[in-house]
């Protein structure tokens, strides 16, 4: 009897242990035709009604009880797959998905990929796969990541002539832009006409306006993460195009089939080759180029290595005498390592350099002015897939920063200039984070974490002690302290909690909430309304406190008509402190005591964003509307009165649609409307010597007229494309179809005629409205093979 009982007990225990045996199913999801990993693809287990998404490197991991399951793997724009599996012990399962089927046929199995906006916890994040970016009509026929994000809700652009953008009332320096994890400081060429991202090499882009995970930090308002393609590891292919202003070419292919591949791409403007031939221009030329290269190698299933690099430059030359140039260079080395099926590690080494250079070749006052900033960083990110309901992320990032604000040197013996150098600055930037993605139950999912950031401003350097730090006219230096190399000048630290929650109301609707605290330790010293390439960044220091922002957002998300339409309404409120401005008429060039010009204060912004997106069918696109306000309050500016921020735009409406008429023809349209930007204009004047001087009362007291514009484009894909390897397409379009003279600015001057002759005695003034681009047709020819 006892023995029987014991046996039964043992069997029972063994039986129950067997029933609880868990195993991990993991692997990569890839594009079947070129082997590119797919980010955030869905892997869903039908029987358990649970699943996960692939991470930034296409990797997923699910720890489930052993048994038989039907897996559904899907990704927007690809044909979904259903795969029956038997899980007995840790299993590696790599899946390949076929592209296409987006227009007419839908092989929808579980449809989980399409309702991503409703199901995923991340809110305020918009994913832009490259196919979507390429579909929007673009100026000069060049698809452009930056132009695309500028039409999203909550993102305001600064207008024509610049690619600076503002997210939820944050200034232009509060946006972090990463390409393969390396930061990029100037994202445009030719003052905003082209972005530095060659769309032939981009795989995807994600914009975070809020709900930024603990893994990221360093800027207050947003993160734009651009990921480049790894390179087709099955066959050799290429793509390129020629547009009105620039030509581009990219080549990719396997180095070792399915194990290693490369991609290189280049783009160059050719307008300068024409401009040198035009005598009237007097030797003035502008040009830019971008070069991208990437190599990746997967020696075995547990390791993958990537090396990628980017170099880009803008060069402006004026009449053989004067030249200016600026650009970013970045290099990234990454190592993905699977410790085991549940622990994914990514180690990254990054080098980034942004520099600008001005050269005056005049004999009497020739000079060369160089300024740059460099950073080298090491990052370690670990993801631990505990079970389908819990994923942990932790890691560390350390950055060594070096700022060279300016060196001026004479470039010939007769020059009046002498070699002068502004003090170089250094800093060490650390971030340590721990976060979790936690599915509490069927309705509630959470994403939470905390980032602990430390910033060390280090020497060598001399710090001056001022009698009155904010007196920028009579600068009285009481004392100065000299710091040695790598000696701590000042150390700052902040705890940055992050919290996202998603509560599902129905299968197609959910409510989301997020809170984030962000710290920003480097400041863009911009004396202009919008950053220009010659603005320098400065580290937080004894006279520059780190910027801090708290943002909350609440949103409602719903999908209609079987996930054909996505709708969302999001409200946000953001409060930031230590936002940096300069004193009025600050002397920012070569000022040893620039600290006396800093003014820091608070900013407050809030708004409502409405967004509708259609992702299926021949008609696709989105519409967005944002109602928002952004104000600032900085002691020492505007007589200590609150003023609306330069980027305040009350209303912002965008519409971007594409329609596939047939297999050959696509048409697209873009409409944008934005309230005018605030501007400071004179209300009075006075005479001093023989000068007419403007008198202003109140910063940003006026508003420019509203900005609106309609663009149209049409794309023709050659019928022969179906059978040929060499595919061609042509895009033609019109920018600003109804020739709206969108105001760029208003300035005032003495009343004069069109030839510049003063009317009257020179005391009368008039206001002039400046506008940049009227109606502009464009054309580009694209190919791939």
């Amino acid at each position: 009897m006892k023995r029987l009982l014991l046996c039964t007990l043992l069997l029972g225990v063994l039986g129950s242990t067997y029933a609880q045996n868990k195993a991990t199913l993991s692997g990569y999801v890839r594009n079947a035709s070129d082997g590119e990993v797919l980010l955030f693809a869905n892997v869903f287990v039908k029987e358990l009604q649970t699943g996960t998404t692939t991470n930034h490197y296409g990797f997923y991991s699910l720890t489930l009880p052993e048994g038989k399951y039907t897996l559904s793997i899907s990704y927007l724009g690809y044909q979904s797959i259903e795969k029956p599996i038997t899980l007995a012990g840790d299993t590696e399962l790599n899946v390949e998905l076929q592209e296409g089927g987006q227009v007419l046929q839908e092989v929808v199995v579980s449809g989980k990929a399409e309702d991503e906006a409703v199901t995923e916890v991340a809110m305020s994040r918009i994913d832009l796969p490259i196919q979507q970016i390429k579909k929007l009509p673009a100026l000069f026929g060049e698809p452009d990541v930056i132009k695309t994000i500028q039409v999203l809700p909550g993102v305001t652009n600064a207008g024509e002539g610049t690619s600076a953008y503002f997210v939820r009332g944050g200034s232009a320096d509060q946006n972090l832009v990463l390409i393969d994890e390396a930061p990029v400081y100037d994202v445009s060429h030719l003052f905003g006409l082209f972005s530095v991202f060659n769309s032939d090499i981009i795989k995807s882009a994600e914009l975070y306006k809020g709900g930024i995970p603990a893994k990221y930090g360093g800027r207050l308002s947003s993160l734009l993460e651009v990921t480049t393609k790894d390179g087709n590891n099955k066959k050799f292919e290429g793509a390129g195009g020629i547009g009105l202003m620039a030509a581009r070419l990219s080549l990719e292919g396997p180095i070792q089939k399915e194990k290693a591949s490369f991609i290189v791409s280049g783009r160059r403007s050719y307008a300068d080759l024409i401009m040198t031939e035009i005598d009237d221009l007097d030797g003035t030329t502008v040009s830019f180029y971008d070069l991208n290269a990437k190599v990746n190698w997967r020696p075995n299933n547990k390791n993958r290595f990537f090396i990628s690099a980017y170099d880009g430059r803008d060069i402006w030359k004026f009449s053989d005498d004067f030249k200016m140039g600026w650009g970013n260079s970045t290099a990234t080395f990454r190592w993905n390592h699977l410790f085991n099926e549940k622990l994914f590690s990514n180690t990254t080494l990054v080098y980034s350099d942004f520099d600008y250079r001005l050269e005056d070749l005049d004999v009497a006052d020739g000079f060369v002015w160089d300024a740059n900033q460099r950073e080298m960083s090491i990052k370690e990110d670990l993801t631990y897939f505990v079970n389908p309901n819990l994923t942990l992320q932790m890691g560390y990032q350390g950055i060594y920063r070096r700022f060279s604000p300016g060196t001026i040197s004479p470039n010939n013996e007769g020059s009046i200039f002498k070699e002068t150098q502004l003090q170089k600055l250094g800093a060490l930037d650390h971030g340590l984070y721990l976060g979790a993605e936690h599915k509490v139950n069927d309705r509630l999912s959470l994403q939470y974490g905390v980032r602990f950031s430390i910033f060390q401003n280090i020497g060598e350097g001399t710090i001056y002690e001022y009698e009155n730090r904010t007196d920028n006219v009579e600068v009285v230096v009481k004392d100065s302290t000299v710091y040695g190399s790598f000696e701590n000048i000042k150390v700052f630290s902040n705890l940055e909690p992050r919290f996202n929650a998603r509560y599902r109301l129905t299968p197609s609707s959910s409510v989301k909430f997020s809170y984030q605290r962000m710290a920003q330790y480097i400041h863009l010293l911009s004396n202009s309304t919008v950053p220009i390439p010659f603005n320098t960044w400065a580290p937080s220091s004894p006279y520059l406190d780190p910027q801090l922002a708290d943002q909350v957002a609440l949103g409602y998300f719903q999908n209609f008509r079987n996930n054909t339409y996505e709708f969302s309404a999001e409200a946000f409120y953001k409060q930031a402190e230590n936002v940096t401005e300069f004193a009025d008429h600050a002397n920012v060039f070569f000022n040893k005591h620039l600290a006396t010009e800093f003014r820091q204060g608070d900013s407050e912004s809030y708004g409502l964003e409405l967004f509708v997106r259609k992702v299926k069918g021949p008609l696709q696109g989105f519409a967005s509307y944002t109602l928002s306000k952004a104000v600032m309050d900085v002691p020492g500016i505007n007589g200590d009165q609150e003023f609306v921020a330069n980027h305040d735009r009350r209303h912002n409406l965008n519409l971007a649609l594409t329609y596939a008429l047939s297999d050959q023809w696509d048409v697209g349209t873009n409409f944008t409307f934005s309230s005018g930007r605030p501007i400071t204009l004179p209300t009075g004047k006075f005479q001093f010597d023989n000068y007419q001087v403007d008198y202003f009362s109140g910063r940003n007291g006026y508003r420019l007229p509203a900005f609106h514009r309609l663009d149209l484009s049409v794309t023709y894909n050659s019928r022969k494309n179906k059978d040929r390897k060499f595919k061609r397409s042509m895009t033609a379009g019109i920018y600003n179809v109804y020739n709206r003279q969108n105001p760029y600015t208003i300035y005032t001057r003495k009343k004069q005629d069109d030839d510049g002759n003063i009317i009257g005695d020179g005391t009368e003034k008039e206001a002039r409205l400046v506008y940049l681009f009227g109606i502009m047709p464009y054309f580009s020819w694209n190919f791939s093979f």
Partner: protein
Amino acid sequence: MKIQSLLYIGFVVFLSLACEKTIPLDPGQTPELYVIEGLITNENTRQQIKVSKSQGFNDVGVSAGVSGAEVVVIDDQGLVIEFSEAQPGVYKSKESFAGEIGRTYTLTIEHNEQRFTASEMMNTMGTIDTLLTQIDPEEQADPDEDGRFYDILVFMTEPQETENFYLVKFFRNGQIENFEGEDVYVFDDVAIGENLSALPGPVYYAVGDVAGMELYSLSRKAFRFYSDLNANINNDGGMFSSQPANVSTNLEGGAIGYFQVSALDKKEVTIQ
């Protein structure tokens, strides 16, 4: 400074891609402010202070001078210099006197129960060694005005031990030439070496013209004022320019303008 104006040229070229049109501007009411323009130099002459009022944006004509103000300057040794009204709004010292480098002068103006004061010290300065002339070949090929293609070459010595700021004025036949109130020539000496050789001036002359140059030493505050003035006049309001703001002043009591105290060096040369 030089670099700022070069960058400005860069953006002007960019803006040359732009188009413009005149629009009406109605700024509403502006308070009327006292504008004071004072100059004390180390030249022995009847020093001059001008007092006027500001105008609304759309007003036309030169602002009328303010009459009946009491103007007095006292130096740091207690010496009182009285001023009398020579023309409406123009006050000159009753007797000639020369300011001295290193001395601080305090101005007091009273009018209609309002009182304005300012204090300023005369800063040290460099010297204009000589002015030579040359033909500018590019201008000769295509002169803006017939016969006017000579410019002056400035040779200047700049003391390296002191912190100096300068205002330069160029003259042609006794008249000031700053492109009709468009240019302000002001610079500091941070990046300047000891000898400035053959620096060409901005004005073109014809044979027979008398070219003149005046070099004023400025205090740091006055340099600030003239830099602000330059930014104010040349601000195109565009996104790449700095935010427009009011010009600074050293006057207290609510007046605008500046009380300038400068050492002065003048040189002339006739074009032959």
